[in-house]
């Protein structure tokens, strides 16, 4: 049989222990442990979120780098194109210029040639007139027909080359 005295004391002691521990003991420990557990859980959650953010950031970074590289490529390509264009244009211009110069030179040469030809022609005409005059002067005194001939010749030469005669 349980002893009354021991029963009494056990009841007193255990209830006291229980009261003290329930007031100042276990709630402190469990709440603190809970608090820490929550904190750890939150930290883990936060770490996960940060991780996700980092992943997103690095993705974004990669995307930006890719974009920049593309841009660079585009710019380089455009620059190359522009350069090619400029070169081509310059070449074309140069070619045109050259062609123009050649054409001008040609026309000038033509004109020079023309004027030279006409000078030569008039010179030749003068010479031939002079020669003819000398020949005619020699024969004019002998024949009356000579006069006719001269007239005929003058007319002919006038007909042939009026400006040269005018000169």
């Amino acid at each position, binding site marked *: *049989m*349980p*002893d*009354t*005295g*021991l*029963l*009494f*004391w*056990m*009841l007193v*002691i*255990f209830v*006291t*222990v*229980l009261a*003290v*521990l*329930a007031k*100042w*003991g*276990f*709630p*402190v*420990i*469990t709440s*603190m*442990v809970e*608090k*820490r557990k929550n*904190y750890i859980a939150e930290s883990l959650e936060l770490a996960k979120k940060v991780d996700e953010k980092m992943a997103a950031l690095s993705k974004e970074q990669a995307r930006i780098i890719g974009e920049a590289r593309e841009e660079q490529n585009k710019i380089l390509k455009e620059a190359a194109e522009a350069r090619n264009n400029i070169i081509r244009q310059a070449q074309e211009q140069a070619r045109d210029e050259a062609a123009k110069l050649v054409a001008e030179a040609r026309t000038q040469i033509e004109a020079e040639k023309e004027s030279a030809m006409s000078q030569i022609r008039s010179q030749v005409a003068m010479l031939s007139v002079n020669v003819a005059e000398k020949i005619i002067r020699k024969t004019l005194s002998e024949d009356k027909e000579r006069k006719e001939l001269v007239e005929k010749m003058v007319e002919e030469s006038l007909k042939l080359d009026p400006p040269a005669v005018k000169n």
Partner: protein
Amino acid sequence: MHRVTRYLLLALSVLMLSAPARAADAGKDGQQVDIKTMLFGHIGDSYEWHITKIGDKDIVIPLPVIVHSSTGWHCFMSSKLEDGPYEGLYCAEGGKYDGKIVEKDADGNEVRPFDISITKNVAGLMINSAIVLLLVLGCARWYRKHDVLNEAPTGIAAVIEPVVNFVYDDIIKGSIPEEHCRKYAPYLLAAFFFILVNNLMGIIPVFPGGANTTGNIAVTLVLALCTFVAVNLFANRHYWKDIFWPDVPWWLKVPVPLIPVIELFGIFTKPFALMIRLFANIMAGHAIILSFVSIVFLTVKMGPAINGTMSFVAVFFGIFMDFLELLVAFIQAYVFTMLSAVFIGLAHEGEGGKASES
């Protein structure tokens, strides 16, 4: 480590070899060693705390005796009882109240006064409770003084916290609905630590330990009573309905309330089983260890050869049993707490569903 083990083994061997000699000393007066008295003397309660016997002198710690007899209150140290009756009170020898303080009534019969003495077990309970309080409040103090978010527990907190966590997370949260955990956790944790410390202190054979507290039915009775109160005082409607109007065929409950009566008994048998389980396990453990030790003294008369061998066997098994008792100390605390939690959980069954309905 190896060196420590070697020294320990050497010391043990010397002790074992000298044990028969001591035993022979004890038994040389020709008197038979009274195993039964010795055994129950160690397991039972007493008015003084007997530590050892050196020669013919008993080393005892006297404890206060508080008695209300027919002549009023008496309060004195137990050492006063050594020399016969004191203030009409004396320790009964034999009979119904063997070893208890009694007085003689008018007819010369021995009657028991109202006795709330601080006996060995009460003193043991006080010491063990102080240890429990020291441990748990020390841990709580650490938490109050430190920032729990920045520091890992050190010292006493590092010892107690994992145990609290283990009990709280594994036993309490596993058995009791979440919303009631906080309410019951202090009781269950206190019961766990109280039983564990008392069990462990019971294994220690010398002074602050050695009181057979959890192996005493009065102690386990109070613990079981607390569980009984915790279960039934705050039980919900569903629990009571299951007892008085369970879901069984009607003829099992209408003319003769067969199942309700059984269920009603169940209310009492559950804590009763808790009480007996803890008491029997701890008491049996102590009894077995004491029995092994007794073998040393019992075999003295069989000659040194048998005595020596048996002593060796007895000490070996004693050590083995002590290790087993360490395990049992924990297991019984665990089982008591877990079953209490399960019973409390049963008293709150079906509440989650109701809460979600409303």
